[in-house]
């Protein structure tokens, strides 16, 4: 129970840091920490596999990717990046509060059901049996997705060069 609250507070603190930090690098770091604490929550809930994936992919790869990009871009000029529109602030705060409130109320309503643990077999084996016997299709889809994303990234970032090259070829 106490660990729950502790983890929650840590996660929330880092999450708030992501949003409210003025430096993007700090925000990225805070995100990394947020994701790590989520991974810890996963671990605590018994979903070990996901916890590992979370650490590996999200915390490891993605955060690094962010840092890479930040290095590519001259981040010095993009500081102090919080918006200050008052109306927007009020509107969105209200809406977000409403979302949160409704969310909380509905959850609260079903709290008995929701806090029970009904998973009989939480083992990795059972999970992977599901994955490869039933859910192989989305898994394969995910590979296609990754491939597509790869191509997309290449095309997007390489476009300028390619266009320049082709135009050059045309001129010649």
């Amino acid at each position, binding site marked *: 129970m106490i660990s729950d609250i502790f983890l929650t507070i840590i996660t929330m603190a880092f999450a708030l840091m992501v949003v409210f930090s003025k430096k993007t690098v700090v925000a990225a770091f805070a995100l990394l920490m947020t994701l790590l604490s989520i991974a810890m929550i996963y671990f605590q809930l018994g979903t070990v596999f996901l916890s590992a994936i979370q650490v590996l992919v999200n915390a490891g790869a993605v955060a690094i990717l962010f840092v890479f990009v930040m290095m590519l871009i001259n981040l010095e000029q993009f500081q102090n990046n919080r*918006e200050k529109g008052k109306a*927007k602030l009020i*509107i*969105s705060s209200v*809406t*977000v509060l*409403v*979302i949160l409130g*409704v*969310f909380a*109320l*509905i959850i609260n309503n079903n709290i008995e059901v929701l806090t029970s643990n009904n998973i009989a077999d939480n083992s990795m084996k059972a999970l992977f049996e599901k994955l490869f016997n039933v859910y192989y299709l989305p898994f394969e889809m995910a590979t296609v997705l990754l491939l597509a994303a790869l191509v997309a990234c290449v095309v997007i970032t390489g476009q300028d060069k390619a266009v320049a090259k082709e135009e050059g070829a045309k001129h010649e």
Partner: protein
Amino acid sequence: MYENYLALIPFFPLLAFLLNSILIKNKLNNVQAGLITFMSLFISFILVVMTSIHVLNNGPVSVRLWEWMTYGNIKFDIHFIMDELSVILSLMVTGIGSAIAFFSIGYMDHEEKVGKFFGFFALFAFSMLLLVHGENFLVLFMGWEGVGLSSYLLIGFWYEHTKNGNAAKKAFLANRVGDFGLVLGIVGYALVFNTISFTDLAHPDMAIIMANKEVLIISSLLLVLGAAGKSAQIPLFIWLPDAMMGPTPVSALMHAATMVTAGIFLLCRVSNVIVNFSIVLDVIAWMGALTALLAALIAMTQRDIKKILAYSTVSQLGYMVLAVGVGAFSTGMFHVFTHAFFKALLFLCAASVIYGCHHEQDIFKMGGLKKKMPITFWTFTVGFLAIAGIPGFSGFFSKDEILTMALTNPGNGVWLYAIGLITALLTAFYMTRMLVLVFIVEPAKEDKHDHGHAKKKHDDHDDHHGHGALTAHESPGVMTIPLVLLAICSAVAGYIGLPHVLSHEHSRIFQDFVERFVAKTQGHAHLSAQTEYILMGMTTTLILASMGLAYYIYVKNDHVKMRDSLKAKFKTLWTISSEKFKVDEFYELAIIKPLYKFGGVLVDIVEAHVINGFIKVVTKVTSGSGEYLDNNKPERLEMGILYIVIGLTLVLVAIFNAFIFR
């Protein structure tokens, strides 16, 4: 055989119209064009005479040409009839018409577009014959509008002058106001009686009349409005004086002899119905009486020879209508008959004078024409005597009978009689004034200051001849022959309708003949012969006195001075009269201008701001809201997200609401 004649009667004028205006118009010279029209009318006249004799002996002839339309039992046919009523007008139209056509050959000699003139003339004759011979309302109405149209064309014959055009337009519009009533009246009659045939209406079913009293009264009043339009009665008499813008022979034929009497003709056609409604008759009677008086008053002070004659026509038409209004339809027709001759005569004389004076129309610029134009003078005198109502001439008989009938009309007889008598005296006065000023006195010398004003139209003529009256000359034979013929007719025409007291054997031949068709005069007290003699004598004396007064004022020495002093004495009356009671101005101010303004308001406000405004508002709202939305569209990235978030919130709230209030 007579049926064929009947069908052919309107055909010849139509042929003449087509020949003159369309088919061979470029190959004719003036005389040929005139001859074509004259011949067509004359042939028709012969046919009319032949048919009339048949009708006199054997009753009406009718011919049904083709079916125009049917509605239930109502048959709208092109159907001609020659009955007692049409005989008279038909004879007048073709007879007097051919005389005038003959006259016109001379009168229009020097004009341009004479072919057109004679074409329209023939068209008028054709329309008039349609009107007269129509067996039902439809054909009558066709002719009715046809004469309106040809009158419009002839009034606007010299269309180069905007004034003439306006006069023509005015005539047409006033007639159209009448037509409005006529159409509705026809419709009302047709729907009540289930027929539009005059033959049927001559013997209407009293049960129907009693059952539909209100509708019929309204319809009859509407018909009266129609008649008022065509016959130039109050409130629509204003067009007739202006109609004198046309060539004078035209005025003689249309605006004096035939066309304007169509209203009386129409009322006679439906006499058997309207005679049942005393209120309608009263309206007609008062309308006629007042018109007669008003027109006579105006005629007193006019300067234009044609205008005077025009107002006298209106006045005489008032007499006729008065006769109809007191239920003496046949008498009314009798006056139509006699009036046709003397008024045509007077107009032709005026035409002759105008021709002789090189298109000078101001009577104060004439004078002394007695010697220069003797034939014209003498024929004019005959006409003058007839219209003034001197015993022995045709006008006397008809006028006297009307007055008698008015006097004996139950209810308001005395008043109508009084008005009629005053009008008769006024008529005698202004006719004498005219006769004197035109023919007898020497031309006045001092009205040079009026010279500019005198130049009315055809300035070129005036320029050449200086003072028109000074160089006047007698008209050629082609013009004087009709004058003489008409003068004879004017003198003797009255003898076919002698009053009872004068001749027991030959009394009221005309009236009895007409009363075969029209409603008989009813409910009038019978006057003793003595009373009638007294009345006649009194009337004649008074008329002679009135003539004498006029002669005294206008012929005696210093008449100018005297006139001026009289003018000063009756200044108000004189002004009102010379300004024609400002009726034109009143209409202009009270009806036309407001209506035009209203049209302007409709265009400027209703059309522009209400109807188009509605559309503009719709457009503006659409494009305005579009602009507004476009300016506030979620262009920025975060706005798009904000919209999504708001959407999400709303969805959640809605569902949560449902969840709470389930």
